[in-house]
């Protein structure tokens, strides 16, 4: 083994579409793997909401922008022996390659682990990729780089339509378009040429409709190579794998097709010399005769996380050990306790992944699925057959547990076909509806290219539903249960109360199909002879009291990494308090479903019946529901009836503070001023995280929002400590909290929001489920607020915990949290913020002064900071006074100001020189990179609203857009005050 003593691990940055929690899961595994070898682990990431940025395994943590400058500074400061970036997604891999390419790593004697420059170069560039595959005698999709639309059409004539057009060298490799005619191609090629930095586009033969099969392969330095698992995407090529329903292992291949692809995958990984994990994607023609290699990703990916959770094989952990020089047979499989990482997992179940979209939170987003991923999260469902796994996935997504959507039931056959053809997020349910209506399977297969095997499986489910409806007999009931219908689903189908029962059992996920007696399995429910969870528990008998933590489910905007982060802190807290902790969750990217975190994991949906199955097997005394959001809290009564006590908030408490009338009544009784719907309260927004033991309270931090308008607190830029709130106002905050806690005593935590308006303080709302700011506050204060809250919930007093009641002392450093959005991935979404959360993740900047912290955080969020140029301003009349300050500040720093006509009039009449630009002009100038910043706050009045068009254009050109005048003003000031990035310090938190 190589003798590394200190390694810098790069994280993935904030949660975005296409990059969910999986990289936190992988980073933790990597840190664990390195730590076990006695290595000093330095971890760098820009987001506070990653568990890997807690010092669970890492010795030192840097929450800094993930860019060349700051990583260089960390390297200079820490002088590690090596850099490991394969667990941090494509961005951090890119970053490490850049550091390597410009010779920096070599100069400083830092080894680059887990990745080979040459390999990355040849797989990233499509041309060299195709060449490399040809050398191996493996088929790539035929493609050509062209410089003009005419050339594109010539090449398309040669290979035949349809073709795929991709701009060459764009940051997003997945931005591809399908063209079926010459006219379409000509037009798309032209726009893609514009989008490409080097004015080139790639034309590829279209293989839409082919089966999309992936293999997750892992190889060590001794050329030992295994395939961890295959993945089959039910939706064929043409829909991004992240937006596809997928099944593990592949189901519809013949032996010889399967063997051929698996062999090719291993060969490709071996020939490229990849060490660690690698995802190899194939497109297989529907007749199984031809295949092409569509992608090789030599790093940990979303699929890696999915496969890890579906098989029990720790891909990130094993890859890290390989990077250190270990061979597969030297790495223990801690589930079986008697095999090693060179044993390919043998599955005796079937796992189905459903994507979860958040189109509703984004408002006007177009819902059509394509080659760009739009899902924000996913759920994983495991069953002994396809049908039960599929039905589990359905109830993880649909509240009624059924694959029939009411909205689709009402459609005529013709309309239904249109929905299927439109292939939007309702696609699979529309297909089910068609199967239910007995549309010919061949016809559905022709339209969707979904393999008939899957369609027949859907038919089995539909037939079961119909049988049950026709005859609610015990036999049909038991059959339906085996097919994955819950009692709740059965009730809805039959319209009757369920008079039978069938007890669920648990099977193990053990990597070996029961060949060995596993020492640390995790479980999924099924119907069968033995309850393995109970058998396993009988062998343990720890005697500890048990707590069940209900997980967060699939990531949706507004319920992102923070829930999982808090849940893991809760698990660790309860473990430290002497509980045996059990988790139920269905999110494969989450850290909670890592079997190394809690004492036991149940990989199952979060529906009432599934939770009760776990309760029946585990018989926990306690349950924690609040990280599962409202849906989980609703199960409070059911659990209490089963004798389970709720730790922390329950549904009753949640209702009390969420229902505005009830909540304001409580505030009135407590003599606490609050906002009302009759007046607009536009002022400084502050927020406090309140922990109480039922008597005293503790506030680790009060944070201030930069934006004055009422936008969702998770979407606002926030700072700890407050910057514009004086002490007397903070005393008022204390008074309010104190009175509130007396009026409504609780044990645990809640989040309280205030607004300072006309020099007076008002409470705006409180929440127990909005945890978006908790990880940030934990990082900024160094106080594990979740731990303290869970201790209070379990009965300890603040005094016993050793916490001084009241608001904690202001921290000496400034920490700024900037939300991160994924607007560029969504079509037809406006960037303007409001009530509903639109951010997908967050980043944090730390500095001695506020301006430095803000700038760092903005840089970390991906903003390109420019100190000269022009600023486009287009604002609301009501923002007038702030606008003048903001524009004045930019002007004084030498920026030129452009404004849309109304705004320009205001500016010019107030002696701020502004050039007028109409929408068309403005958009044109944005496209020509004339603006350094855009400030646009005007409401979007419809699809082709000028302001939305401006914001969209800026987004596509990656020009920073401020949708709040306050944040633009604060930013302009910090530009004036702060040092240049090169001089900003990086520090261990």
């Amino acid at each position, binding site marked *: 083994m190589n003798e590394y003593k200190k390694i810098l691990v790069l994280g993935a940055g904030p949660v975005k579409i296409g990059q969910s929690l999986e990289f936190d899961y992988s980073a933790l595994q990597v840190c664990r793997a390195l730590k076990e070898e006695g290595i000093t682990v330095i971890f760098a990431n820009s987001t506070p909401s990653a568990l890997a940025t807690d010092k669970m395994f890492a010795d030192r943590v840097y929450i800094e922008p993930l860019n060349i400058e700051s990583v260089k500074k960390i390297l200079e400061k820490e002088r590690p022996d090596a850099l490991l970036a394969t667990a941090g997604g494509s961005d951090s891999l890119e970053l490490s390659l850049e550091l390597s390419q410009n010779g920096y790593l070599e100069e400083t004697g830092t080894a680059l682990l887990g990745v080979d420059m040459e390999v990355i170069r040849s797989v990233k560039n499509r041309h060299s990729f195709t060449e490399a595959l040809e050398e191996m005698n493996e088929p790539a999709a035929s493609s050509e780089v062209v410089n003009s639309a005419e050339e594109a059409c010539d090449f398309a004539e040669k290979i035949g339509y349809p073709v795929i057009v991709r701009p060459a060298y764009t940051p997003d490799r997945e931005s591809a378009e399908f063209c079926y005619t010459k006219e379409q191609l000509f037009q798309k090629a032209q726009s893609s040429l514009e989008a490409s930095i080097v004015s080139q586009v790639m034309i590829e033969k279209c293989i839409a409709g082919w089966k999309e099969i992936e293999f997750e392969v892992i190889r060590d*330095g001794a050329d030992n190579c295994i395939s961890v698992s295959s993945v089959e995407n039910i939706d064929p090529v043409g829909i991004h794998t992240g937006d596809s329903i997928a099944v593990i292992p592949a189901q519809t291949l013949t032996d010889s097709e*399967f063997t051929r692809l698996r062999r090719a995958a291993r060969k490709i990984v071996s020939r490229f010399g990849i060490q660690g994990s690698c995802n190899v994607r194939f497109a297989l023609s529907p007749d199984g005769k031809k295949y092409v290699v569509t992608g090789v990703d030599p790093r940990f990916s979303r699929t890696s996380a999915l496969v890890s959770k579906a098989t029990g094989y720790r891909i990130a952990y094993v890859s890290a050990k390989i990077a250190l020089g270990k061979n597969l047979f030297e790495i223990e499989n801690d589930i079986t306790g*008697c*095999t*090693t990482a060179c044993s390919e997992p*043998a599955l005796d179940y079937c796992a189905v992944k459903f994507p979860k979209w958040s189109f509703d939170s984004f408002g006007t987003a177009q819902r059509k699925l394509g080659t760009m991923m739009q899902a924000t999260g996913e759920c994983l469902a495991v069953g002994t*057959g396809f049908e039960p796994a599929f039905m589990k996935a359905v109830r993880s997504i649909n509240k009624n547990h059924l694959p029939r959507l009411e909205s689709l039931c009402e459609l005529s056959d013709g309309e239904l076909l249109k929905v299927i053809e439109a292939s939007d997020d309702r696609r699979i349910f529309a297909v089910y509806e068609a199967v239910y209506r007995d549309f010919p399977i061949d016809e559905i297969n022709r339209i969707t290219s979904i393999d008939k095997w899957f369609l027949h499986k859907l038919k089995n489910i539909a037939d079961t539903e119909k049988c049950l409806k026709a005859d609610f007999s015990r036999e049909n009931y038991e059959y339906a249960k085996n097919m994955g219908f819950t009692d709740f689903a059965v009730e809805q189908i039959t319209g009757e109360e369920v008079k039978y029962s069938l007890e669920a059992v648990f099977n193990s996920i053990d990597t070996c*199909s029961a060949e060995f007696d596993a020492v640390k399995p995790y479980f999924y429910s099924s119907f069968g002879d033995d309850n393995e969870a109970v058998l396993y528990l009988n062998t343990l008998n720890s005697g500890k009291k048990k707590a069940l933590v209900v997980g967060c489910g699939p990531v949706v905007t507004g319920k992102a990494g923070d829930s999982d982060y808090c849940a893991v802190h809760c698990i660790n807290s309860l473990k430290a308090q002497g509980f045996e902790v059990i988790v139920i969750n269905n999110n494969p990217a989450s850290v909670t479903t890592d079997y190394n975190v809690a004492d036991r994991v149940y990989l199952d949906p979060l529906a009432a019946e599934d939770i009760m199955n776990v309760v029946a097997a585990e018989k926990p005394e306690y349950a924690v529901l609040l990280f599962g959001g409202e849906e989980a809290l609703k199960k409070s009564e059911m659990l209490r009836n089963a004798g389970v006590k709720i730790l922390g908030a329950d549904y009753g408490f949640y209702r009390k503070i969420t229902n505005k009338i009830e909540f304001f009544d409580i505030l009135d009784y407590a003599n606490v001023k609050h906002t009302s719907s009759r007046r607009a309260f536009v002022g400084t927004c502050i927020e406090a995280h309140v922990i109480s033991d039922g008597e005293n309270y503790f506030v680790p931090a009060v944070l201030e929002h930069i934006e004055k308008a009422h936008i969702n607190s998770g979407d606002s830029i926030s700072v700890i400590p407050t910057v514009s709130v004086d002490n007397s106002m903070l005393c008022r905050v204390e008074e309010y909290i104190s009175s509130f806690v007396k009026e409504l005593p609780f044990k645990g935590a809640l989040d309280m929001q205030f607004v300072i308006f006309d020099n007076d303080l008002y409470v705006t709302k409180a929440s127990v489920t909005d945890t978006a700011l908790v990880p940030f506050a934990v990082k900024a204060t160094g106080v594990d607020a979740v731990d303290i809250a869970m201790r209070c919930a379990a009965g300890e007093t603040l005094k016993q915990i050793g916490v001084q009641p009241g608001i904690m002392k202001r921290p000496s450093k400034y920490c700024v949290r900037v939300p991160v959005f994924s607007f560029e991935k969504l079509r037809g979404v406006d960037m303007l913020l409001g009530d509903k959360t639109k951010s997908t993740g967050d980043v944090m900047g730390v500095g001695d002064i506020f301006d430095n912290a803000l700038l760092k955080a903005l840089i970390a969020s991906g903003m390109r900071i420019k100190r000269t140029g022009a600023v486009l301003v287009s604002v609301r009349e009501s923002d007038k006074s702030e606008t003048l300050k903001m524009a004045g500040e930019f002007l004084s720093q030498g920026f030129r100001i452009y404004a849309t006509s109304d705004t320009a009039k205001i500016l010019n009449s107030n002696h701020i020189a502004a050039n007028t630009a109409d929408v068309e002009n403005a958009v044109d100038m944005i496209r020509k990179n004339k603006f350094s910043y855009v400030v646009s706050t005007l409401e979007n009045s419809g699809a082709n609203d000028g302001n939305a068009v401006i914001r969209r254009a800026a987004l596509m050109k990656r020009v920073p857009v401020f949708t709040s005048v306050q944040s633009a003003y604060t930013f302009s000031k910090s530009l004036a005050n702060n040092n240049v990035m090169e001089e900003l310090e990086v520090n261990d938190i």
Partner: protein
Amino acid sequence: MKNRKKAYLVLADSTVFEGYSMGKEGVTIGEVVFNTCTSAYSDILSDPTYYGQIVAQTYPLAANRGVMPDGEGDEIMSSGYVVREWCDVYSDGGEVSLNDYLLSRGIVGICGVDTRRLTRYLRDKEYVNGAITNTLDNLDELLKKINEYTISGAVREISIKEPVVMKGENARYNVVAVDYGSPRKQLNAFLLNGCNVAFVPAFTPVEKILEYKPDGIVLCDGPADPDDEPELIENIKRIIKLGVPVFAIGLGHQMLALAAGFKIVKMEKGHRGSNQPVRLAGTDTVMVTNQNHGYAVQGETVNPGKAEIIMTNVNDNTVEGLEYKEFKGLSVQFTPKGDIDSSTGFIIRSFFKMMDGETNE
């Protein structure tokens, strides 16, 4: 809904697993073993190492794409088949469903069994007999039969009766392959890599083998206990004295070890699946292999003067490969692939080197 006629899997200690009939209805008795492969079901059914065995598939969805009856060499060797769920065939490729396939071959099967529970039952037992039956009437009589059951005379039963000579591609070697009941597919590794193969019956005398002027002799895989036919061991003792390189697979490997004076043990836990990791001794190379055997060469009895253990199983350290010193001989417990890109592809090439007269370093 499919055929839902009740059927039962009865084990020797009278444990009963309930399920539904699949394939032929009736009674079949055999040693019950499991296999952890997720695909390759048709290979398993036709693999002679399963002769006399009732195979249970741990992967719950069997034959999703049906079975492609490929004529020659697709004779079902196992006595019965146990699955959780089988699938109708929906593709247009000429495949037949598992149910129809078993029916047409007259094989008794059972579906709807909790195969995970069955595997957990079987995994720690050396040897379990059982029966698939469509009735539990006369259970005592059935149990008696189950307990009396042994697999014997298997090789004699399934080895080919007449020699077959096959021409290989660009042949450089003449190989005699002695058939103990091996699948024809096993020969492809030779035929596709420059060998003419004379495929001869198990009991072919040495003199007859020599008539083919072999550059090398292959002792093929087969079913059951290697002690079953002492005559075959005697035959092998003569073969290794010929000075012709010998390559042995599976049962052949075990019988060769017996002929060399080593011992065979019944394993505590058989190797039953496609993910058996085999390490090349003294190196960092591991091969992922497909295996079905309950006997193994006892490592302690391998005389280091006579042979070297060149491969071991990563999980339980059992002997997986031997290289002999007193004669040119190489043997492995599993079936090596002929494909050069396969991790086991080098093994057959080592044998070719032996035939070339090169010594292996």
